[in-house]
């Protein structure tokens, strides 16, 4: 199948029209579903690892399999109570981080020249040398173990 360059421009224009034709409200709704899908992606991977199907998962969190399916399809939005229950039954903990822009990510990188070229090093967090950590006291018969 051969595709001419003019055809590819037509394809790009058509897809651009699809992606750019959303109202502000639709964009917010789409963002809300994407946030939910981030949680559900973790849930799906965890369920697969544990060998739990959707029906079993629904029973564990006290809801119906069809409700969970509606969430996965983006037809309904998840609530925080269900997320908390999912955490508990799947023995996982969701973590929230702010997504950095590329510019923010590279601010910690400092180019350094060594005469042969430029090297980029990533700064790392300095250890807290002044922090005092008390070692556990051992009685005569105990041996220390690395943890």
């Amino acid at each position, binding site marked *: *199948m*051969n*595709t001419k*360059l003019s*055809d*590819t421009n*037509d*394809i790009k224009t*058509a*897809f651009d*029209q*699809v*992606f750019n*034709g*959303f109202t502000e409200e*639709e964009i917010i*709704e*789409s963002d809300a*579903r*994407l946030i939910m*899908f*981030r949680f*559900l*992606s973790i849930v*799906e*991977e965890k369920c697969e690892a544990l060998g739990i199907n959707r029906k079993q998962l629904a029973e564990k969190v006290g809801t119906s399999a069809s409700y969970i*399916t509606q969430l*996965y*399809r*983006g037809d309904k939005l998840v609530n925080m109570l269900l997320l908390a229950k999912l955490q508990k039954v799947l023995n996982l903990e969701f973590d929230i981080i702010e997504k950095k822009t590329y510019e923010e990510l590279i601010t910690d990188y400092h180019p350094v020249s060594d005469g042969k070229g430029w090297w980029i090093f990533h700064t790392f967090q300095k250890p807290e040398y002044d922090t005092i950590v008390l070692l556990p006291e051992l009685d005569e018969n105990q041996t220390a173990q690395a943890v």
Partner: protein
Amino acid sequence: MENFSGIIGYISQDARHKSKFNDICRLILNGLRNTELYDKENINERCKHVTAMKFFKGQENDRIYCKEIHEKNGLFVVVTSELLKRKKTNKNSRREINLIEKVAGYEYEIIGYE
């Protein structure tokens, strides 16, 4: 290209279809797993790069079969290849298997991107 008008016409027919397509694309671009909306159709070794975008399961149950292409430079492309309206059964019928194998046989060359 011969399937382009059918696929773009399907996606852009109304806000509901546009929104679903947008959701699926965002899943793919964010590397999220959601087999209810997008999943591999690797019915055999030859079809391991064929996937399906699933539109309105339990209702119209339409599919857009895609081919995932992993370029050596790390570029990842998903080509929407074939539209199937009203998938009737949960398991793949002969009709769907033929379509999936057809998509597996398509060869695409990535000629430019932004």
